[in-house]
Each structure stands twice: as structure tokens, then as C-alpha cells.
């Protein structure tokens, strides 16, 4: 949307007026007009289990900043909409945040489908957008910052570790939508890089509940390792049926999705022990920053079953934006973007998170863990993992006007 003459006049008139009016506001309200922080997360429907901790985490960040005096002397206020696990709601509320509420920044989107539904809206209305979820990589857009991990940061570590020296035959099972499809491609690439062989790749619609035929098929293929990118409640049934068939101790499993909600606590130890996962964060991390964050978030909302990378990255995404505002001394979109592009960083619960100018992704620590007794035990830390997958296709320093999600050819 181009700036119309009417908009320009209105803005030009509003600035001196609001400056004049400020003392009055100071006296009447409890402070300056708040800075609005938009949030679009699912709090009902199938994806709510992921969305709820993210909103709580965002609330925590806002409360902390407010307790410390706000940003630029102004308090922050959350404008949250429950997108109900429904893409249509995402589009509708994105418009509302941009046009009616005129928020300074939006944190939100969970599935890749929801992100692609709202990203163009924030571009059009020039609202800064943060996507704080691990995803398949490739988004190249100067208006968007992606703070979650991408396959080059996690899958690249997970596959070689799980394959070890002698596990060359790999079987891949994944959820049947863009995340699963693209992640399965990355898995195949890393298996090949390790000199292994992918014997089969199977995709499952999200409502598949009976994995009997698949389990037989896997047995017939006799792989050394099973890689899983299964998603959601129905798919947890796989781990259960796998164990009850007695396969648990026969073929090891590594997963890029297991544990994002609360899988380790719902399955019993026999069903989940030894499953490997790699993410940007585990609740069990014992660094002081992590334990402090977990304590604060659990105190604020005791009902959160597990604090995963989703919540931690949302918290850090929010703080990165706050750092950007502090450095820019403004909430203006371009000023904050440019401040962030200088390579701002924040020390969060996951460790140091640094914005990468070229991709608008972040360099962050990655962790590899195994389930033991229904909890994750962190086995390896990979400091400062870079978003190399996106970096291979995206350079916003050279092409700042670039705006698309690349399908990274593997």
C-alpha cells in the first residue's frame, strides 16, 4: 500500500499534536500511550498445544520489560488474537492487527501454512513481523525475522549422530504437509552425505491412527535407523504401536518433531527411552539463564506441560525486537530493522542468539538430546549453529527487495 496524501497529512498533523498532548496523557493515564505488540497464536483447535506456551512466553517477556520501565519510556501492551488453528482466522486477524490496531510488531504464526498466509499482509501494510518457530527454512524477506531453528541447524547434527559409524540403512517417516515433505528431503540429503542409504520415505496424513501396515513394512525393509518427522496427537500412536510390536529395542529412532509438545511425558519410559531429538532448546537445560526462564514461566502459568523451543524462541524473538527498538530509539519499522541488521544479539534461555543480516534468520545454539525416563537428557551442544540452508539461497544484503520462500534444492 503506497502512502496516500491523506495518510501523509494525517500523520504529519498527528505528530506535533501528540507531542503537545503528551503531558496531558502523562497526567491522566498511568503513563505514556503504550506500544502495541501484536500476537497471532492458536489457543484452540489442534495446534493450541503448541500455541499456548508461546503466548505465555510472550506475555512473560512483555511483563519483564514493563517492570523494567518499558521501552523508550513507554509501556508495552499485548494485542493477542486466538487464531483457532484456522488459516482464515490468521488472514483476518493479521489485517486487523495491521489496519485497526496498528501494532508496532507482530509475533506469530505456527505452521508454515499460517506463516505464508500472513507474511504478505504484513509486507503490504508495512508491519514488522517475527516468526519464532522451527521450520523448513528458505524464507527470504526483509520485513520478516525467523528466529527458530532450520534443518541446517538441527537435522544436520541429528542425522550423523544417530547414524553413528555403522547405521547405513535409514527409513524415513514424516507428516504429509510442507514441513514433513521438506524435512524428509533434508534428512535424505544428510543421510547421503554420511554415506548412508535411504531405503524408503513414507508420508502420513495427520489423521492416520493405525500404523500396523507401516510397522510391517519397516520390518520388511530392515533399516538400521528410523528417522521420524511425524506431527500431532494422532501420530503419537506410532511410537506406542511400534513399542507394543516389540520393535523398540530392534531399531533406534531419531526425530525432528518428537518432544515439541509433551510426547515424552505422555508415553511411558519403555516407549520413549532412547529416542533422539535435536532442537534449539530443551527445558532440561541447566544453564542459569534457562533455569531462571523455566522457573519464571512455570510460575506464571503452571499448566504448561513442557517448555520447548517454540516458547523459548518466542521469548527471544520478542527480546531481539526490544533490543532493536532500544538501539534504534524508535519503533519505526525500518529503523528497528536496520538496528537488528547490525547483528544485534540477546542472551536468552537457549544461549546467545544473534541476528544474521543476510538471511534475517538467527545464529543460535543447537542441542541434541535423548529421552530417558520420560525426560530429555542433553547429550551434545552445538554452539552458534548458523542458518546455512537459508544462507545458500537468500542474501538480503545484496537483494534487500527479495521477498519469497525459496525451496532449497537439495
Amino acid at each position, binding site marked *: 500500500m503506497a502512502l496516500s496524501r491523506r495518510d501523509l497529512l494525517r500523520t504529519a498533523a498527528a505528530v506535533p499534536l501528540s507531542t503537545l498532548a503528551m503531558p496531558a496523557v502523562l497526567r491522566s493515564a498511568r503513563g505514556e500511550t503504550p506500544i502495541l505488540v501484536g500476537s497471532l497464536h492458536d489457543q484452540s483447535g489442534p495446534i493450541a498445544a503448541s500455541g499456548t506456551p508461546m503466548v505465555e512466553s510472550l506475555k512473560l517477556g512483555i511483563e519483564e520489560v514493563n517492570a523494567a520501565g518499558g521501552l523508550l519510556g513507554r509501556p508495552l501492551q499485548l494485542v493477542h488474537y486466538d487464531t483457532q488453528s484456522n488459516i482464515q482466522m490468521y488472514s483476518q486477524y493479521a489485517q486487523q492487527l495491521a489496519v485497526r490496531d496498528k501494532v508496532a510488531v507482530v509475533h506469530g504464526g505456527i505452521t508454515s501454512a499460517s506463516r505464508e498466509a500472513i507474511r504478505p499482509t504484513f509486507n503490504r501494510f508495512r508491519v514488522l513481523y517475527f516468526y519464532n518457530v522451527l521450520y523448513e527454512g528458505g524464507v527470504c524477506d526483509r520485513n520478516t525475522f525467523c528466529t527458530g531453528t532450520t534443518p541446517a541447524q538441527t537435522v544436520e547434527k541429528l542425522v550423523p549422530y544417530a547414524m553413528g559409524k555403522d547405521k547405513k540403512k535409514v527409513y524415513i517417516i514424516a507428516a504429509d504437509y510442507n514441513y514433513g515433505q521438506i524435512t524428509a528431503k533434508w534428512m535424505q540429503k544428510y543421510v547421503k552425505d554420511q554415506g548412508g542409504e535411504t531405503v524408503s520415505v513414507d508420508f*502420513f496424513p495427520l489423521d492416520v491412527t493405525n500404523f500396523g501396515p507401516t510397522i*510391517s513394512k519397516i520390518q520388511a525393509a530392515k533399516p538400521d535407523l528410523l528417522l521420524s518427522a511425524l506431527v500431532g496427537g494422532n501420530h503419537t500412536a506410532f511410537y506406542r*504401536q511400534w513399542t507394543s510390536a516389540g520393535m523398540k529395542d530392534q531399531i533406534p529412532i531419531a526425530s525432528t518433531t518428537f518432544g515439541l509438545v509433551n510426547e515424552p511425558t505422555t508415553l511411558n519410559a519403555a516407549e520413549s527411552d532412547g529416542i533422539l531429538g535435536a532442537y534449539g532448546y530443551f527445558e532440561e537445560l541447566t544453564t542459569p539463564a534457562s533455569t531462571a526462564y523455566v522457573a519464571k514461566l512455570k510460575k506464571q502459568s503452571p499448566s504448561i506441560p513442557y517448555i520447548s523451543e517454540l516458547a523459548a524462541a518466542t521469548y527471544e524473538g520478542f527480546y531481539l525486537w526490544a533490543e532493536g527498538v532500544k538501539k534504534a530509539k524508535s519503533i519505526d519499522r525500518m529503523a528497528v530493522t536496520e538496528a537488528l541488521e547490525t547483528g544485534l544479539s540477546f542472551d536468552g534461555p537457549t544461549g546467545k542468539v544473534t541476528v544474521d543480516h543476510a538471511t534475517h534468520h538467527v545464529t543460535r545454539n543447537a542441542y541434541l538430546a535423548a529421552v530417558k525416563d520420560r525426560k530429555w537428557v542433553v547429550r551434545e551442544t552445538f554452539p552458534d549453529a548458523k542458518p546455512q540452508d537459508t544462507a545458500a539461497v537468500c542474501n538480503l544484503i545484496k537483494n534487500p527487495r527479495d521477498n519469497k520462500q525459496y525451496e532449497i534444492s537439495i
Partner: protein
Amino acid sequence: MDLSLIIALDVVNGAASLFLLCLGLAIIFGMMKIINLAHGEFVMLGAYATVISANAGLNIWIAMLVVAPLFVGVVGLVIERCLIRFLYGRLVDSMLATWGLSLCLIGLVTTIFGNTINGVPTPLGGFQVGAYRSSWYTIFLLAMAVLMMALVYGVLRFTRFGLVARAVMLNPGMAATLGVNPAKIYMATFGIGAAITGLAGGLLAPVSGITPVMGTAFVAKCFITVVGGGAAIISGTLSAAGLFGFVNQLGAFFTTPVYGEVILFLSAILLIRLLPQGISGRFFKGTL
């Protein structure tokens, strides 16, 4: 040889779980012509009843075989008294009301237990066939399907209640003149249908990921099976569950799970086109 045995077991297992899931619906839809769109949520309630009581320390078998059907049966009775009894003979209204009910149940369970995944471990363990492994629980599900089939058949065919129930379904007016209270029979039948559905939920709980929205994964398949089966409760549901379970599982094994589902739905469309009255409308006329 071992592999074909395992695949045969998968197929039988698919058919057995489908049959268990559909039996309650077949009773409610087939006998009473109520389109119960909350069927999936009855399954979900059965699963939750099992998980909650098993995690509270109750023996898993009691939780599955007693608590789940009793609880959902009682819920079914309450729902029949408060909602369904006003809707007999109003097919479209019953759809709307039970759809609302399904949303309401999902909301209620989400509010109480949260939107996270629950579960209980699978009992029994596995066994070996040559180089392949399968679980005893699969065999147990099959046995339960056979048992439920025999039980429902026995009740409908050999007991006085079964006779009266069938009479009321055929002609409530005539049954009433003979001294039967149709309202009571409807209530009991709905309760039994709900209890059987709850039992199916309980039986599937140890092999599923249990969430408030899990019912939606079952409801479409169940309706297709019941409609594909036609009017006869047992022979119809059994033949349709057998057929669809067979194509779905074999399709999933030889192609991918995606095509397994596609083949199931395609064969359902074909079946309804060729046999609009369902399988039992053509082949098992007059049976139960």
C-alpha cells in the same frame, strides 16, 4: 510366508478396529436413524475415561472394559434425555444438534484436561513370527471384535429386549399399542450404542495418541462404513468394515498411507454408486 502372515494380521486388525468403532454408530444410526455426528467424541470420551482411570491407578483392563463403556453409556443416556429424544424422525436437525454437541464435548474436555496428548501404555507386549514382530494387543482387539459381534447378535436375536427393540425400530406405533413404551426403548438403545462406542474408545486408547480432537479422525470413516454396510447392523457393518479395512491396510502396505486412504474413499464411492442401499441391502437382506 512370515511376511504374508503379518500382513494378513494387519488387515484383520484394521477390519476389527473399524468394526469396533462402527458398531455403536450402526446401532444408533441403523436402528434409530439418528445421524450422530458426535460419534467421534463418544470414542474420545471412552479413551479419556480409560486414560484418566488407568493413570489414577486403576487396573488397565478394568479401565478399558468396564469404566469406559459404563461412563460413555451414562453420558449417552443423559444426552438422549436432554437432546436426542426431541429429534427422532428429524434427520437434518439431529445432524445439526449432534454436531453442536461434538464441538461442545471437545471444548469441555479441552477445558478440563487441556489440549495436550494423553495416553496409557499398551499392555501385553509382542510376539515373533519368523523375522517379523507384531503385538498381542492386535490379537486381543480381534478377539474383542468377535466377542462384541456375538454379544450384540445374541442380544438382538435371542432376548426379549432384542425382540422388542427391533419391533420398536420397525414400527413404533404398533409396538406401543402392544404395550411397549417406545421412548424407553429408544433411550436404552441409544445408551447401549453409546456404551459400545465408549468401549471402542477404551480399547483403542492404548494404541492411540489421545487428544480432545481425536474423534474427528474416526467419524468420517465410521459413517462411510455404516452407510456402506447398509441397514443390517451386524452383517452390514461386518462386511463393510472387512472390505474397507482390507483395501485400506493393503493399500497402505503396498503403496503409501496416503494412497491407502485414497483407495478407501474411492472404493466407498464406488460401492455406494453400485449398491445405493449398502452391502446388506443387496446380499444379506433380512439378516441382523
